[in-house]
């Protein structure tokens, strides 16, 4: 092999060949499954397919019906509220916990395991436990009332106005541990010397985090962001287990709309139209960002 590539950016075909061969599975998945599957889905969203995919085109009918549905509108609103809050709280709590864990504390292992263990439980189970804890009859509310504060009211799962926050509580409980873990891995990747230098310069700790450490952890934040955001868009099991979308339609989410219409209502066209709208929204946000993030920059 030639040992004198001067720029570190090889152009020889046979060198890249290995990388290309190694990337074949990735290319196949991207093209056949995700791109192919998406095109297939979009295609059939213009049909009136019921239980099975059929090529009977009805134009934009499915989309018109979708946007006329109050349940879909509620779903979108819920996703927006849940998404924004979940993103902020996951990042903030996850980072704070990681920063605390990074203070060379004792029992680090124990604390990490405690924060992470909820992630081991499936959403179905998480939903069940929190449904129980938040039940006004025998959960937190009844316990606090039995302690003497009889007017205490905390029944998020049965109040249409705040039910989405009840789901948020459970989601954060389950997911922040992983965020903490990712952040911790990122923090541990920061060189000690940076801390030393910051201390020598007399920069306060919070400022060091905010101005030096966090910008250095950019890749970790991006990974975390994608993990959290993709989880938000796909949120389904948790809602089903906690409220099944109720009370009424108050905690419906788009993924549930898609699934319910695909399989319960046996209206594939409607489900596909809804999932196309979801994908379109994601694409509008993600594509420009992905282009800037992954396409534009060059690396040595």
């Amino acid at each position, binding site marked *: 092999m030639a040992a004198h590539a001067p720029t570190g950016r090889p152009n020889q075909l046979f060198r890249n060949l290995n990388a290309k061969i190694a990337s074949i599975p990735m290319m196949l998945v991207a093209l056949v499954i995700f791109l192919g599957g998406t095109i297939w889905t979009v295609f059939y969203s213009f049909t009136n397919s019921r239980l*099975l995919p059929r090529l009977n085109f009805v134009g934009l009918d499915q989309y018109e019906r979708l946007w006329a549905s109050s349940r879909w509108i509620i779903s979108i609103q819920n996703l927006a509220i849940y998404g924004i809050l979940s993103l902020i709280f996951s990042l903030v709590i996850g980072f704070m916990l990681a920063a605390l864990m990074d203070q060379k504390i004792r029992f680090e292992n124990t604390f990490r395991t405690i924060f992470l263990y909820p992630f081991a439980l499936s959403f179905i189970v998480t939903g069940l436990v929190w449904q129980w804890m938040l039940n006004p009859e025998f959960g937190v509310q009844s316990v606090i009332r039995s302690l003497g504060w009889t007017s205490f009211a905390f029944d998020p799962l049965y109040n249409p106005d705040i039910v989405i926050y009840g789901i948020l509580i459970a989601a954060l409980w389950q997911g922040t541990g992983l965020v903490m873990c990712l952040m911790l891995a990122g923090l541990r990747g920061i060189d000690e010397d940076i801390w030393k230098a910051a201390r020598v310069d007399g920069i306060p700790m919070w400022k060091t985090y905010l101005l030096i450490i966090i910008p250095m952890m950019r890749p970790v934040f991006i990974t975390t962001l994608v993990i959290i955001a993709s989880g938000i868009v796909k949120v389904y099991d948790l809602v089903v287990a906690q409220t099944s979308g*109720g009370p*009424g339609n108050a905690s419906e989410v788009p993924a549930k709309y898609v699934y319910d219409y695909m399989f*319960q209502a*046996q209206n594939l066209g409607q489900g596909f139209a809804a999932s196309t709208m979801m994908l379109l929204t994601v694409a509008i946000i993600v594509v420009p960002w992905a282009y800037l993030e992954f396409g534009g920059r060059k690396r040595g």
Partner: protein
Amino acid sequence: MNIRAMAAALAATVTLPLGAAFATDLEVTHWWTSGGEAAAVGELAKAFNATGNKWVDGAIAGSGSTARPIMISRITGGDPMGATQFNHGRQAEELVQEGLMRDLTAVAEKGKWKDVIKPASLLDSCTIDGKIYCAPINIHSWQWLWLSNEAFKKAGVDVPKNWNDLVAAAPALKKAGIQPLALGGQAWQANGLFDTLTISLGGKELYEKVYVKKDAEAAGGPDMAKIFAAAAQARDMAKGSNVQDWNQATNMVLTGKAGGQIMGDWAQGEFQIAGKKAGTDYTCLPGLGLNEYLTTGGDAFYFPLLKDEEKSKAQDILAAAIVDPKTQVAFNLKKGSLPIRSDVDLAAANDCMKKGLEILGKGNIIKSVDQLVSADTQKQKEDLMSEFFANASITPEAAQKRFADLIGSAD
């Protein structure tokens, strides 16, 4: 895309290696997983195993909405099971049209299904283009009001004789700290309650206008407005139920925390398990004590088309066994549902079941909404009803307008 050819080809490659055994194994998928249900399935398996074949159980819990996607994926993926449960109605219609299901007409003729299966509408639901594609197994009806005798005693009022009595007793119940009506939060429960009000308060004629003829005018008319007004009353009475599952709501009636619940005949199993006695501990009112009509929902078994001859034969045997009188008695006694034939003896049935049988015998039956409209329409109705029942700010008039639109575009 020719699903039929591919499925058939794949079915052949997948099932061949397993088809060698003498007694044929037949995998049966269903969503009956609770104690009583499993016991009923056990009877079915026993009957099938007695024919020298082997029942391989493929239970998937979480009701039809969890199980159905799995069943459909496997059938379309070319790896079908030997038999699968669906509800009476139109859930498997397209699978049949796609040629993925086995034609049972020969079995049906041999067993004289056309003569013995009562009501005939059950077999109609199985029939597509003159051929029979499923074996009905039981009848479940929705139109039951379950009342807690204890709750009314505590509130100092008589146990209601019908729905109107319950509405009248609601203030007294509330005063005694008892929830007048228990209703679980899941959408299908609100929807079922509404359909029950339609038949029991509005009568057969109204029900058929709306769901058989899909008459949008009737759906928006004054008779239906009365039903919506009653639904709004029910909404007030059910406020504060704070439970999700239907059996948790039944449990409120069972323990006297709630006065009553409108729920299908499967609720009976809960009272039985708890050792409660009909008449003394609880009261059941079919047709809400007003119009004693029952809808004939329930379950049927469908048989995917298989290449393997042995398995196909076993499918026929299972289909025949399902309709067999002995299986019908054994299964339905355990399940708490009604048999699909009138020539069987259910002496062991309890009081509520006997009331149901009597109504069935009189022929006071109507097709269930599932049999009359598509799953899609039913789902939209569920969305509307669950929203209406959870949100007191939606007026009956507004809900009725949406309902009429829905019926107008129903299929």
